[in-house]
């Protein structure tokens, strides 16, 4: 009946895409951080490498991961489209513009912060995702004596097995897997990567302090009780705990391991 413009061709529709993909990416960060906390376990990657195999081979997780890649791409493309439209909405800029008097720095520079995060994501995906999927990480074997619970670790050759294997021989559990943990350890011995990761997490922090609450404003949430909760989560969970949690990983491998 309506002959008004389709939602996704409208300004609010495009903002809705930004909001929904943004919130989905925020939810992913929670899972990603909790899973990666296994990097802090001092078990030579025993838990982490099994987790990495599970996350890349369990079908429901794979479906979600494709949704995730689509969200990242959509979020970036819509950001670009909206930014170009916003630039076109003010063809002649101000000679003097005092933005600091009326808004926060990070809210005005979401595009720059987002670009830093996108470059980081490309680096991050190459370092771990691409190398993991293209046989560029070492292989490892864990032999756990089921009687004593002691685990022996050794690097093995790729030709001996295919991808991932769990067997029990003579009361000894043998797990062969790709050693993503080793790859993490290797990457984070590079001070350049460590610095870049920490700076990217700072950008993520500023991006999410504005982005998380902004996403809910776009969805139309304005509530006396819930908005302060959203703002609290945006600052403390997404702006502080999550970026610091991630930043600690390269720092841990560089300074502690």
């Amino acid at each position, binding site marked *: *009946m*309506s*002959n*008004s*413009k389709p*939602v996704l061709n*409208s*300004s*609010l*529709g*495009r*903002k*809705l895409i930004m909001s929904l993909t943004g919130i989905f990416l925020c939810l992913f960060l929670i899972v990603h951080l909790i899973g990666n906390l296994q990097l802090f376990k001092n078990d030579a990657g025993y838990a982490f490498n099994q987790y990495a195999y599970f996350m890349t081979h369990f079908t429901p997780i794979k479906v979600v991961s494709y949704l995730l890649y689509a969200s990242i791409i959509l979020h970036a493309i819509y950001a670009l489209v*909206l930014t170009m*439209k*916003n630039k*076109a*909405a*003010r*063809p*002649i*800029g*101000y*000679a*003097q*513009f*005092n*933005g600091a*008097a*009326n*808004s*926060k720095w990070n*809210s*005005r520079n*979401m595009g720059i912060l987002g670009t830093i995060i996108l470059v980081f994501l490309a680096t991050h995906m190459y370092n771990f995702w691409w190398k993991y999927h293209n046989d560029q990480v070492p292989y490892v074997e864990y032999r756990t004596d089921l009687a004593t619970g002691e685990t022996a670790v050794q690097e093995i050759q790729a030709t001996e097995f295919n991808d991932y294997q769990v067997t029990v021989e003579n009361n000894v559990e043998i797990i062969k897997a790709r050693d993503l943990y080793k790859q993490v350890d290797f990457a984070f011995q590079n001070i350049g990567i460590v610095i870049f990761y920490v700076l990217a997490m700072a950008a993520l922090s500023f991006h999410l302090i*504005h982005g998380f*609450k*902004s996403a809910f*404003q*776009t*969805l*139309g*949430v*304005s509530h006396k009780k819930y908005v302060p909760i959203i703002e609290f989560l945006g600052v403390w969970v997404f702006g502080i705990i999550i970026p610091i949690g991630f930043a600690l990983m390269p720092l841990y491998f560089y300074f502690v391991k």
Partner: protein
Amino acid sequence: MAQHMNLTLKVWRQKNDKTKGKFVTIQAKDIADDMSFLEMLDVVNEDLTRKGEDPIYFDHDCREGICGMCSLVINGRPHGPKYGITTCQLHMRSFHDGQTIVIEPWRAAAFPVLKDLAVDRTSFDRIQQAGGYVNVNTGGVPDANTIPIPKRIADEAFESATCIGCGACVAACKNASAMLFVSAKISQFALLPQGQTERYERAQAMIDQMDAEGFGNCTNTGACEAECPKGIKLSNIARMNREYFGAKFFREEDVHTHS
């Protein structure tokens, strides 16, 4: 006694929307600190007229902060360095002797410069005409208070209705977005029973028109709210989004737009 001051003005001069503009430096001499900013420009213009030069063209009308006509981005801020006032309510005591003041028009593709500092804000009128109205039956005058409206709702609708359509929200927004204005105009009716008849087509029609005028997209920086002379709140934008998505996703059959 009023203090007097001399100022250097860097004023945007532009013949019309077809020509390119530029900044022109003009000295404002012997300005009393109890003048309003517009009175200061009046003094400068008298001086320019006496010298046979073209006076600075700027918008103004009521000069008491209720009409929304005066504009000007002064030293990088719409309506100047104070909060919650229009340019006519800004006094020269907010500046000091010897100061340089940069004066620019509202900058937005949807607000083309007519001349110097005056911009064409009829895009706001067209958004309002697209859906910012209520249909009222003719006939006898209804009794007052026959439609019960909770005080809280009435107050909120009233606060939204205090928008004077000056365009400071667009001027302050880094994206030149008009969403604070449009959301205030949608809210003042969406909240009240009298506004329900056109409720869902209103949100769609006004947002379609806003997009067609070439305003930018809100990124929730809050600059509009901070610079609004009437304190229109960002919660209006959240309400506008609810109205629009509600219409689009849940009320499509109920909506009959005229355009």
